[in-house]
């Protein structure tokens, strides 16, 4: 049986990358972002907390955004940042870590149009 990826991730570059202009980087991560306050099906126990702690976005190996997340971010978190396009373009990478120790990452090449 194929192993199901627990946390699919989508990294998209929105807009045409033009040198000197800003382009949007959108990250969509599949994660339940359980707050720890919701009750289980039988109404007795709380579903344990499981949220993404931190997201790190890098452009050409250099960190451009470090985010610490709390329970207030919606499930299947969406993060959208803008980055200025340099002459040669570059590699956009996202890394995330959750409070249960799960990790995820994605990479995409930003190609100048």
């Amino acid at each position, binding site marked *: 049986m194929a192993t*199901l990826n627990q946390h699919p991730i*989508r990294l998209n570059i929105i807009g045409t990358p033009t040198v000197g202009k800003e382009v949007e980087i*959108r990250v*969509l991560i599949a994660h339940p972002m359980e707050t720890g306050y919701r009750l289980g099906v039988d109404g007795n126990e709380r579903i344990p907390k499981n949220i993404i702690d931190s997201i790190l976005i890098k452009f050409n190996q250099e960190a451009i955004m470090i985010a610490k997340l709390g329970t207030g971010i919606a499930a299947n978190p969406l993060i959208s940042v803008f980055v200025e396009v340099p002459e040669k373009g570059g590699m956009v990478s996202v890394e995330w870590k959750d409070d249960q120790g799960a990790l995820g990452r994605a990479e995409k090449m930003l190609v100048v149009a």
Partner: protein
Amino acid sequence: MKLFAFIVTIFLFCVTNSSQAQSVRQSGNAFLSPDMLRQQHDPTLNPISLWLDQGQELWKSQCQQCHSSVSETAKAVVQFPIWKSTLASSGKLINIEDQIADCWSKKSGKVISNDATEILTMSVFLSDAAKGMTIQVREPQDVPMKNQWQEQMNLAGQIYVRRQGRLNLSCTQCHDQQIGKNLRSDVVSPAFLTGFPIYRFSWQTVGNLDRRLRACYSGVQASVPSTGSPELRALELFLKKRSEGMLWDGPSLRR
């Protein structure tokens, strides 16, 4: 002259009636806010695209060897629930998730439930592939099967108009008589089945029709039937038949 007037009247009667019938049936997507519609139409914003990505992977590795064409297999989405005969003279209704689970169990040799992530993911994937197809419920050809199928339909029709729960509401009271009205943040839709499975923000995940129907029972504070019960399958058949002729929207966002 009289004959001419008669013909014109009949013609007008037919024309106005048919246009009225078409304009009344709206899919649940018509009741979403502009913000939600924007999220739904943009795959980079829509959380459902994460399930679709997974579904694509699973299809390639698990299903493609036997089911060569996605669009052929997706036709089942608009034809189910179907009558499956178990013994010579009896059978039961099965829906698309039951069929996928059955296929998966046979292939892997292990029993898998409808609520498993894999089954739901495949359901989302096939539902997306069936976008734009016209709903046409498949009826059994065999006469005794057809009679039993009809019996289920009638049973479901009775459930649909029966008042239940502490709130003492029947399905028809809201979904036929209070369409468009607000229930706090929810807007009552006519409950046509064009967009399942749904990503519901209150669930914070994707769920199938079975779960949504159970949530409805819970909403009127009636005792909730268990997952996969015949009552829920019969209701699904009735609602699908009621949506016959409408176009399939594919998996949708809901509040």
